[in-house]
């Protein structure tokens, strides 16, 4: 569009300037809408976190939270869970993505359907089915007992293992989409070149393929970690009683304890952690790459 001025006709230029006006109108609509529905309430949340009982500005909420409450163990638990889930997704997804990224034709279509179908299905549904499958009398434990695995049936529900399994199932499609998107773009002539120069298959894999796939690994890992960090549905449904993850802490304070300043304070801690991670990742990988798990 920038070369419109080179056009011999005047009409496009006038047209474009009228479009520019319209564009500003559009931006104004966006700013008003997001300002009222998102920025202002978010600012109110930030404000709540630094408001004391007497209504004055204070950092007492943060001090209280860090000193006495259960924030620290929950924060640690949340971080550990999201990292465990990310690692599980990566270990399960990476080898599969190597093969799936090479497919063409109907196999590639089948692959994208098999990933997108769970990806688009409600996370409540996906968590519910895992509650059924992982139960004491569920398919998983029955299979283990039938195989004669010692110790079966295991307790896989309402504990940490269950949450990690459930969240891995829910978040694996993000990792797969990110990995496959990057691996598809790897130029296979580079691998052939390395082979013809005498490198072994293992050496080609570790020194050529893995480095070229790292952007996808990084994007997938960051998305999975951040989504896992703020996840609510699966831990709330599979985690059993108590506050296991930080999002549940916020929910409990709003709905059960009716402690809005407390919820706001935890939200701010969460926001700082997540946005710092995003900022660091965006500096490293670029924001647009992070936001497009489809690659």
């Amino acid at each position, binding site marked *: 569009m920038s070369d419109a001025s080179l056009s011999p006709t005047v009409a496009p230029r006038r047209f474009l300037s009228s479009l520019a006006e319209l564009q500003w109108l559009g931006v104004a609509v966006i700013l008003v809408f997001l300002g009222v*529905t998102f920025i202002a*309430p978010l600012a109110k949340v930030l404000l709540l976190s630094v408001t004391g009982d007497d209504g004055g500005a204070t950092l007492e909420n943060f001090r209280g939270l860090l000193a006495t409450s259960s924030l620290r163990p929950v924060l640690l638990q949340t971080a550990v869970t999201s990292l465990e889930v990310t690692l599980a997704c990566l270990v399960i997804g990476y080898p599969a993505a190597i093969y799936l990224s090479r497919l063409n034709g109907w196999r590639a279509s089948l692959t994208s359907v098999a990933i997108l179908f769970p990806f688009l299905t409600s996370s409540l549904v996906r968590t519910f089915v895992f509650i059924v*499958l992982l139960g004491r009398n569920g*398919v998983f434990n029955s299979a283990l007992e039938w195989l004669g695995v010692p110790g079966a049936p295991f307790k896989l529900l309402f504990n940490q293992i269950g949450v990690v399994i459930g969240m891995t199932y829910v978040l694996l499609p993000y990792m797969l989409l990110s990995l496959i998107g990057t691996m598809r773009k790897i130029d296979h002539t580079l691998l052939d070149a390395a082979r013809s120069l005498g490198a072994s298959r293992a050496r080609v894999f570790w020194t050529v393929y893995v480095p070229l796939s790292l952007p996808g690994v990084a994007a997938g890992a960051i998305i999975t970690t951040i989504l896992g960090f703020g996840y609510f549905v699966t831990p709330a449904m599979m985690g059993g009683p108590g506050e296991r993850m930080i999002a549940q802490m916020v*929910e409990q304070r709003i709905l059960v304890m009716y402690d809005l300043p407390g919820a706001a304070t935890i*939200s701010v801690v969460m926001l700082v952690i997540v946005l710092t991670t995003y900022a660091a990742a965006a500096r490293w990988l670029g924001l647009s790459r992070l936001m497009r798990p489809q690659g």
Partner: protein
Amino acid sequence: MSDRMTPAARGDRVLAGYAWLVLALLVLPLIALIPISLGDSPTVSVLPDKLSLRWYREVLGGAEWRSAFWWSLATASVATLISTSIGYLGAYAIVHSQSRLKGMLEVLMLMPMMVPTVIVAFSTYVLATWMPANATWLMISVGQGLLGLPVATLIIAASLRGIDGTVIRAAVSLGGDRRQVFAFVTLPMAIHGIVSAAALSFLIAFDELLIAVFLTRPGIETLPVRIYDSVTYELTPAIAVVSVFLMALVCLAMLAGEVIRRLAANAAVNAPQ
């Protein structure tokens, strides 16, 4: 395994088998919902002793599930309208603007995706306290619309970037005014992106739990809230029945997306040169 197979070829075969196994593990649990939904007893089991449509009757005949479905449909439809229209405006500005501020606009539009959902839900809760009580369902839509906005913006921006600027200029120099160019050139060329964006934001809104949980009132209960409560208090095959309906909805959305994509591709091929 044949003796002629090299270790490398065998390795490839193992890798292929593993990859298909991972895909099967992604899809099979969802397929398992079908037999679960056909159970006859109140306990959930993948292999029910007796198949029946009892829980289908219970869900379809139950006023509570039906009302939850209609609430979800209503809030998600309005949410889709919000994310698609605001997303279009934002995508248009991001794609066509040369302003240095457009990076900031992009970050602003993507914000609801970067901020954890529970915090978006919290701020929507705060927003709802500022609004009259009878606007609660609309605030659920607004919050769900915010969650779909980043995805909608990204998809529509990608489809707008694909439009060749010379086509627009040609339409204008042939005498098209702003409305005609939008209706007959830009819209048909971007329609695939707009429809995909609408479908995705609809699914995001329809499945959204936390905003609806925070804003739920007696008489306003969406499907995810109802599912969430049911899982917590009474685990019955009714949830599997609802799940099967939700999966059918996803299949429908994927099919519609594919049909539109094909139609758009055909239109592009058959367009008069």
